[in-house]
């Protein structure tokens, strides 16, 4: 599983990096970026879904492999 932030939609609500800090971090402006290449380690799938389900801008995409 991988996560991706859709930059055009992200408004920097910061919910993903507050709730799933191992998958997302903030850039200098507060917008979200994925950690590393966005790979979700085994056991972190629920956190990935949590981040997506809390984004008011629908800016987080989960790519199931």
């Amino acid at each position, binding site marked *: 599983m991988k996560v991706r932030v859709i930059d055009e939609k992200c*408004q*920097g*609500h*910061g*919910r993903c*990096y*507050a*709730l799933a800090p191992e998958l997302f971090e*903030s*850039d*200098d*402006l*507060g917008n979200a970026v994925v950690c590393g290449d966005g790979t979700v380690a085994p056991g972190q799938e629920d956190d990935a*879904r*949590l981040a997506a*389900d*809390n*984004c*008011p*801008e*629908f800016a987080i995409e989960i790519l199931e492999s």
Partner: protein
Amino acid sequence: MTTTEPTTPTSWADDYDIFDKGYVADPFPIWDDLRGSCPISHTERWGGSWLPTRYEDVSAIAHDTVHFSSKEVLVTPAPVPEDGQEQEMIIQLGGEVAAPPITSDPPEHQWARRLILPMFAPRAVEKYEPITRELCRELVAELVAAGKGDAAVGYSQQIPVRIIAKMLGIPETMSETFTQWVRGALELGATDPEIRQESFKEIVTYLFEEVTKRKEHPGDDILSELLAAEVDGAPVPDFHVIGTGVLILVAGIDTTWSAIGSALWHLATHPEDRRRLVAEPEIMPLAVEELLRAYSPVTMARLVKEDVEVQGCPMREGDRVLLNFPAANRDPEVFERPDEVILDRAKNRHIAFGAGIHRCAGSNLARMELRVAIEEFLAAAPEFSLEEGAEVTWAGGQVRGPRCLPVVFG
């Protein structure tokens, strides 16, 4: 507009009153009715406005910067300035003092927001967590020692104002004055144009002096940073720096203090949630979002830029529309059991901080303050409840939250 005591509305669909005492204390059943019967209601009161209550509509309007302008974001119209006074200020400062970027439309919005976002990004906010924690500890210790106290005035109200003062490089001794100004601008001033105008004037005059001082002696603070910033190779004009100062001062105090107060009200009245939060501190990040959802403090306004029809409602240029984020966050179409606080709610796309390009720039700061304020209150006072017989009072309109919250400990 009138400042006389308004009568209770006979119909919430076409005569709502956001300052009605019953509505301020408990707006939730009214929103539930409206969502089903008239999802965008209208009133002639307080200068006239539209009030959407469904999440989908509120979010759509917040995202639509083509038809809706942020030039006026307060829920009641601006008072008409006295002759010449405003003009004098504009000439002196080289432009009109607004509150950018909250009052900016694109394209100004983009650079005005970019200017302040780094100051409120998580890394910048982190620096203020230790002093926030220390402050909360001192405040709650004092209340607990007394055995009872006002968790609104004695705790919630004291926190954000001091952190904002620190960020602006202004002495903490100004806290009381700031609180008065901000209440004058947003709360008391919402229904009293004179108080509102006077409060804004005092804030602008004060910031003008502070900006003048910073030009001579720059410090490690937001105003100095804004003065040193450049946009397209030119310094940011003074009226813009002052305007952004107005925004930071006015938007960062009343709002967060209201969120803290509402959270403590909930925990005082729901012992099972309070005990759960004490026992399971790991759910705190989710609980903070859930409390923000259930007790969203802020309603913002937009002005219709060009005629548009929304859900059959003919909105005309210049009409005011209230972005009812608190009602949107209780919409059963989007949230399961919306009127219940579920501390570890997993699906929670709440828009307490707005949506779209005007998402609250200070949300990371607000979230940190709210989290730390709850953590430290519970650490010192795991058991507390409302004081029997004492009255809880609420403010509403632009910002909803308790203004008097008498609690007893143990």
